[in-house]
């Protein structure tokens, strides 16, 4: 059964339709949320605190029972995907007890538990998978360290290695870039791109608005429901972000006089206290990324002039 599922993951598909979640204490976290993703893709999950990001994650892992709607992975229920070890979860660093008496090796080996025997004795295949994963995130030399003895960036990579060792195809990352140096961020993004190439669906929940357009192909804007979803360039508009975040984001609007008055350009910066998302002329798109996307820019210009009329 497991093998057939993995064959199907060539075109891995995640579908969330009409999802509503009400917790037992009466809190309504999500309603009518719908979107779908097909592998390989990197999708940013963006929304203010309490917008239902973690509830959505929990639904994709089958931890909460939806009060409405359904999540399917490859057309089947989440439970079957979990049994086939398709879903891997990389927790937020704040949720991990770093004083726990486990080594880096132990943690990555935990990724294999789902496919190990009753007593969880590591076989050769398991040890090889752990070694390969550790080498991929450059932590092999640190395998015997207690997890608290690692640097911030290394700590993030341990749990990424665990997801690799598990062989997950739908990988959920919760705030992978908080408190991480630029170098580690780069390394993580490179790894995520490799996983995308191999057909995985990677869903990244993040506050780091500025980095989303850089590495996410798609984005889902969330605030108690899905406000917008699709290619990042079309989702990440000033209008959509304002709708999702309301007044939560800091706005810095630089008038012409602040920048350069002679060529008539102005810059607007929006940030959720992480790397800022910069809106220049024609929406968010850094100049280095503009090549080959002229049609998108034309489209935006057209809409902008229409809006002005």
């Amino acid at each position, binding site marked *: 059964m497991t093998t057939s599922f993995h064959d199907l993951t060539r075109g891995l598909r995640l579908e969330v339709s009409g999802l509503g979640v009400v917790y037992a*204490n009466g809190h309504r976290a999500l309603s009518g949320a719908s979107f779908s993703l097909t592998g390989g893709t990197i999708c940013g999950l963006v929304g203010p605190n309490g917008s239902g990001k973690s509830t959505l994650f929990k639904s994709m892992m089958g931890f909460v029972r939806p009060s409405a709607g359904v999540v399917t992975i490859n057309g089947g229920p989440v439970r079957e995907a979990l049994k086939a070890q398709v879903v891997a*979860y990389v927790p937020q660093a704040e949720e991990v*007890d770093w004083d726990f008496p486990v080594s880096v090796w132990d943690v990555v080996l935990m990724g294999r538990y789902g496919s190990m025997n009753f007593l*969880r004795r590591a076989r050769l295949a398991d040890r090889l998978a752990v070694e390969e994963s550790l080498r991929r995130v450059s932590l092999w030399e640190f395998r015997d360290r207690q997890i*608290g003895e690692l640097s911030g960036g290394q700590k993030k990579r341990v749990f990424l290695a665990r997801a690799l060792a598990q062989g997950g195809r739908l990988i959920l990352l919760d705030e992978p870039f908080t408190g991480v140096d630029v170098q580690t961020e780069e390394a993580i993004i490179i790894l995520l791109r490799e996983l995308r190439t191999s057909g995985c669906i990677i869903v990244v929940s993040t506050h780091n608005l500025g980095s989303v357009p850089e590495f996410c192909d798609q984005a889902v804007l969330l605030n108690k429901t899905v406000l917008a979803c699709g290619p990042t360039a079309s989702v990440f508009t000033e209008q959509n972000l304002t709708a999702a975040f309301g007044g939560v984001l800091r706005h810095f609007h630089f008038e012409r006089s602040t920048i350069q008055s002679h060529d008539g350009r102005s810059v607007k910066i929006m940030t959720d206290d992480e790397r800022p998302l910069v809106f220049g002329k024609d929406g968010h798109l850094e100049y280095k990324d503009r090549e080959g996307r002229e049609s998108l820019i034309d489209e935006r210009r057209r809409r902008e002039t229409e809006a002005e009329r």
Partner: protein
Amino acid sequence: MNLYTEPWWELFGYEFMREALVVGVVVAAMAAVLSCFLILKGWSLMGDAVSHAVLPGIVLASMLGLPLAVGAFVAGLGCAVASGFVKRHSRLKEDTVLGVIFTGMFGLGLVLYSKAPTVLHLDHILFGNILGVSRAQVWQTSLIGVGVLSVVLARRRDLLLLCFDERHARALALPATALHYLLLSVLALVIVVSLQAVGLLLVVAMLITPGATARLWTDSFDWMLVVAVVVAVVSSVSGILISYYVSGSTAACVVLVQAAIFLLSLMGWRLRAWRFRGARRVP
């Protein structure tokens, strides 16, 4: 003959002493293994709660003529399950809910005890009576001890994962809920069989101190289990012997020895942390 100057090895000649030591060692080993999981899961208070909550179960069982252990087990597990339920259906935190429920159940137990015509000795329930164990109790404790130890040690990897990262366990489709209740049931069972030895007030120490001491000694969980069991067994045996010489409460002596070993370990750990400061982060 003066009782207080006998050499300690001659104490093993008394049958009640041998039986007390067997029960003491088995209870110590069980509680020590469990304590490693409890302190890592942040369930130290859970041991306190479940041990208090067994009181109404014991009193009711004795009134109804049922085995005391059955009543105690049901009440203890009931307390843990009920507080989990209330927590999910309210905005309160788990320790708050637990605090309300276990003190309530303990109060109920005390009222029932004063109103019920039972032959129970309240101080035996509260403080234990290890020197008065029967042969049947020795067998019962040993069998349950072997059962608990083999189940917990066989499933230790899963239980450790449950303590470390429950979400990951669920994402791997491991039976996280079943493991959760396994840990709770084992906790209730260990408390029930420990009552005879140390009583419900001091069993809490047996369920926290050995694990806490062991954590200071090592960063490896398997070694932690070993150290906890050794510390608990040494404390148990020496506590029982000391109590004989000082004519003090046995349970109190065992707990005191455990606390003393913890303090010494803490000092040693601080010393090590100070010596290696900068070279290596110490947890």
